[in-house]
């Protein structure tokens, strides 16, 4: 059984017909050719497939498009402004926060949602916000540094947590 789906994806409205059981991850990768969204488990346990739905992080591998009718979706492809990188992307590239890069799209989007909610997060808050996004390469230190740097550049100085 197919459903007719209407979504806004990276500021473009999309109409498509997809089988009801397809996940948002599959729709993005297979029907919309947005392969920037990766998968690490397809069970909702690693955060790799995170996208933003109406600004909030959602695990696309367990989200069903039928529940997302008319929502506004942001994937990693929608972060840069033309050739200008989003400050988070810029900071991740500069600081070496992406090693293999496989976790990076999901982490960038989770961080984007965090900074929209709290432009000056403490390091501890960043840790907690990213706790659902596994990274096996970096040990997280440079990822946290990059989120802090991006927050700073976006005009707000993060308050460092006591450690």
């Amino acid at each position, binding site marked *: 059984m197919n459903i007719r789906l209407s979504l806004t994806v990276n500021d473009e409205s999309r109409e498509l017909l997809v089988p009801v059981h397809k996940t948002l991850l599959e729709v993005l990768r297979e029907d919309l050719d947005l*392969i*920037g969204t990766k998968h690490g488990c397809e069970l909702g346990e690693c955060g790799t497939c995170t996208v933003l739905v109406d600004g909030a992080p959602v695990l696309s591998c367990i989200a069903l498009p039928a529940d997302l009718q008319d929502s506004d979706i942001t994937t990693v492809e929608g972060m840069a402004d033309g050739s200008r*990188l989003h400050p988070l992307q810029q900071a991740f590239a500069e600081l070496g926060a992406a*090693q*293999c890069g496989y976790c*990076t799209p999901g982490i960038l989007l989770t961080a984007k949602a965090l900074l929209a909610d709290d432009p000056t997060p403490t390091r501890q808050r960043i840790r907690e916000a990213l706790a*659902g996004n596994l990274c*096996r390469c970096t*040990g997280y230190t*440079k990822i946290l540094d990059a989120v802090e740097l991006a927050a700073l550049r976006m005009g707000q100085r993060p308050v460092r947590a006591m450690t």
Partner: protein
Amino acid sequence: MTDAVATRDALRIVGQPVVRHDARDKVVAATAYAADWALPGMLHAAVLRSPYPSARIVRLETKRATAMAGVAVVLTAKDVPRNTLATDVPGQTTAVGPLRATLHVLAEDRVRHQGEPVALVAAETLELARDAVEAIEVEYEVTPGVFTPEAALAPGAPPVHGTGNLLAQWRIARGDVAKALAGANVVVEGEYTTQLVDAAYLEPESGVAWIDSDGVITIRLSTQVIEHFRDVAEVLQVPQNRVRVIGTYLGGGFGGKEDVTVEAYLGLLTLKTGRPVKMVWTRQESLLSRAKRHPYRLRYRTGANAHGEIVAQQIELLADAGAYAYLSALVLLYSTVTAAGPYRVPAVEVDARVAYTNNPPTSAMRGFGAMQTVFAYESQLDRVARALGMDPVAVRRVNALRRGDTLPVGQVIETHVAIPELCERAWAALGPPTAARAPHIKVGRGLACNFQPYGRIVWLHDWASAWVGFEMDGSLVIRCGCPDVGGGQASSLCQIAAEVLGVTLTRISVHVSDSALTPLAGTTTASRQLYMSGNAVLKTARELRAGLLGVAAAMLGGDADDLDMDEDRVVTRDGRTLAIAGLLAECARVGVPRSHLGVYHAPAGEPVDLATGSGKVFPDYTFGAHAAEVEVDTETGLVRVLGYAAAHDVGRAINPQSVEGQIQGGAVQGLGYGLMEEVVVENGINLTTSFATYLIPTAADVPDVRAVVVESGEGLGPFNARGIGEPPIGPPAAAIANAIEAATGARITRLPITAERVARALGLLD
């Protein structure tokens, strides 16, 4: 050759924390990983796996699956032209003799571990392929299995293979251990247990295969070893030059993508169907079936004199290979060589064995056998220090190896050993001690050192090649068969070439990891790529430079030795310049090549003497020291890591940012090993096949890791670098265990160090 640019001051690009060439692609998600690839008419593949750890296959019927609409092919063992996959270079061990490590591509009459592949399906959609797998009928007769190495080696144990269950044994002996122990001021005895763990990279095993022009079977996949194209050719029984492996940028490897993963299956399916085929393992499949890190039982007796100097170590190691040999014999060799730690020990006996069981197979994983031993030797040393009232830095200072010392295996250490400095710097990097938050919270600090070989075993005659060439506009191309696992392997090659040839980094394009189009450079394993491919690019670039500067000298007058290449120009001592494009045009005119293919050969040696277990084994080692501060809740056993510092002597940091990244990432993997990770297997059945049950550290579980990068200027890599891929994973478990004892007096000898184990050690449970 003397190294004209080895001093740090003379370096321009090497040593700078430059932004990696692949960074932008990664943050905009333009990197095309293996699963991101698709071709017209592509089929999707799935694997049928054994649900039993030990069984006979009584009946295998594929008719129903084959007849399903949309199913292109179903393959079983009888369809595989040569159903044997070599998983090892020929090796040898002291007590078992020559070793041939092979396994079946698809199970024949027996399955030996849960998850062993039995049949393959390719179909129009993934869903159909999975349905067809379900439709294959298999009747198993469960047979008795063995599930611990102890049981496997007991008399009368059911053999996992036709022969006995002892897969390999290494022994080395130096000095009179019994006498030295008898004369020691303190003797510490300990038994340690390390667990089965998984590489758990976020990108599952994946690839796409197709038949390219001229019948070349082309497999584009996530692999650390493109040289497996030869193994695939053997399986398919086609000439080796008719299989091409294109290695993608990996979503992590850590040794788990060193052995063959999807490539043989993909080769078979594309050959049988003539169509492109894609295979992506699920996370469950990956956790179920991939080779993992060997669990060990380690028994140590360590004797020391009144100054804290170790006088003897008696060591017995027993490891679980699981159902197939893979790289177990070599992993065990690494354990044997490193068992006494980076210390001077006059008398040492090591007896190391690895046994077949019906557990998940074990093979390479970051640290490769030099890791399990760290937990034991560093726990032992701390106990010696405690018995003598010495501090952790002092006991390591008095025992540390020095250049010129001989390891128990008979290898002389030829480069600087920075252990004392690394200990001091790691310890100091923890900063002022943290006060305990409450009376029942205890805070303590621990230290642990390690040494990890980099580069392959010397009798494997390792080499790497690279091609470096200028385009007419002065831009530069590097081709090198080195897979990039995410550690910045390819990017470092750019820095090295830029340094020698004076090319702006952004004008370099680097092509890696293609068995047909890039000169072969060997595996991205054994912390060897910076060392091997780095040296290959360095050597090639220098040879190219010499040819080009010969032409430049003729153009500018004077001696080639007086010329330098910098900022895309040739520069004379008196400040005259020649644009690179002008030089290249002249090279074209006079017929001097603008490109060069070079080969770097690592120093080679003979196999260790099988009778005495003595000789040179590895090219060199990387040394490290980690310091941890933990708090322990003495009411619950909960451990939290408050601070962590990891110091390594990397010889020379080619890109300090990448070096820090390796240290931080490795340390956190090591913390996962120390504190939480465990593949739980009960009677051969894996109970942890998802990230909900196989836990790896999250951002909230670990502190920041302070990476302390020490550059001794000594190492065998380019510009005297040492390998840093594996070393940082070694010390964390021991550093944590030592910190817990410092905090509470309780000694934990079993990994992972869960709250329950700590509570038990504190006497809170029984």
